């Protein structure tokens, strides 16, 4: 049985990456080595993939990131939902179990700023809560396949970046967290009108397991791109891997 798609992908999308693909073929990766990697991925077996195959897969992932960034519409809003559909409490998820969550003391907490930002003084929680607030009911979609609808409130990341004099032409916004879960996003998504620094869920202060006192919520990226317990924000032109990116996950992770 042969695989024949009804509608073929447009090959023009790959033109910009033709040298990369030709380079991969020259090294015989696609024809040879990748078959082993493909088999291990399909079966879920813990087979060791050659380093060259890992590099090839990551190169494809970076290409995919570029395509997604190119397709991203900074003004297009994700669907929103009625309050009756909000799951409360929300679903907990992290790379560790809930019993290992370390609560953050909001009274001592400070949001540190770094990089291409004019005013780098740390922010307290009351200062952040005094900024203009926005609420949105959006869907959280996990790479694992589950989702839920949640109501998040806080200050728009765009508003915050403007207030601190961040360079909005920079490429990346990087987050550091109390649970050592670094993450970075593109500036276009940071400025999206549904990208929030959230301090509330369902009109109540964020509970500890969901990122108190401050977390990121974006309607346009997969769940793992939304760090909780944020402690620092950096604006930069230097790419930095996040927790899952270091393990091979896609960086852009758009929806």
């Amino acid at each position: 049985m042969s695989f024949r798609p009804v509608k073929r992908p447009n090959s023009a999308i790959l033109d910009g990456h033709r040298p990369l693909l030709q380079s991969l073929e020259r090294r015989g990766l696609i024809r040879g080595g990748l078959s082993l990697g493909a088999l291990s991925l399909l079966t879920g077996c813990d087979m060791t993939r050659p380093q060259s195959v890992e590099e090839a897969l990551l190169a494809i992932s970076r290409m995919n990131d570029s395509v997604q960034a190119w397709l991203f519409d900074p003004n297009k809003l994700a669907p929103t939902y009625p309050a009756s559909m909000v799951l409360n409490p929300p679903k907990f998820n992290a790379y560790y179990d809930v019993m290992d969550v370390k609560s953050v003391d909001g009274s001592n907490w400070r949001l540190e700023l770094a990089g291409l930002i004019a005013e780098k003084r740390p922010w307290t929680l009351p200062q952040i809560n005094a900024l203009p607030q926005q609420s949105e009911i959006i869907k959280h979609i996990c790479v694992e396949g589950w989702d839920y609808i949640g109501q998040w409130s806080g200050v728009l990341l765009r508003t915050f970046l403007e207030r601190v004099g961040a360079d909005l032409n920079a490429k990346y916004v990087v987050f550091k967290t109390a649970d050592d879960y670094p993450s970075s996003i593109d500036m276009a998504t940071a400025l999206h009108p549904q990208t929030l620094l959230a301090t509330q869920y369902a009109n109540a202060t964020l509970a500890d397991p969901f990122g108190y006192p401050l977390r990121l919520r974006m309607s346009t990226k997969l769940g793992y791109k939304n760090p909780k317990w944020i402690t620092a924000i950096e604006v930069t032109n230097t790419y930095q891997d996040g927790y899952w990116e270091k393990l091979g996950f896609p960086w852009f992770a758009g929806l």
Partner: protein
Amino acid sequence: MIQFPQATNGASPGHRMPLARQLTTAVLLFLLQGATVSAQSPTPGGAPPPPGMSLAASAAMRFPQPIQVGDLLQRIVIEPVESQSYLGKLEQIVRQSDGSLAALITLDGFLGFGARLVAVPVDALVLLGNVVEVVAFTPAQLRQLPSVVPGTTTPVSLNEIIKVGLAKPSH
């Protein structure tokens, strides 16, 4: 999600890649997606309480969250394993004679026949999004619990707020 753009007028026949190469690239993208799914959550959630720890102490470590009793009813109850095996449905929250709370869960049965109610301490349950997991009893232990006779329990008001712990997905 991986998105394949629709064909546009920008593709000229002279630049068209061989089908085999196109498919190879498509397969690579597909496989990469598969790799990410399998890599999430390296540690399982829903682990049972450590030996010697009381149910209440264990539940307190799971950041119990307030939830209205009415919002819990009819939620699916699953086993905290990767396959998320179905155990039953949460029918009612009741107050036991010692004042503690228990959930009445339907067990077993087929197509609505043969099911029976058992009472499971709320402290043995966790919320996993919109489903409930039993973390302190194995399915075999659940099936050894005595059946609850309808009408012999004290239901908790649907408007009452109780607290239930959390877990991360068990995969």
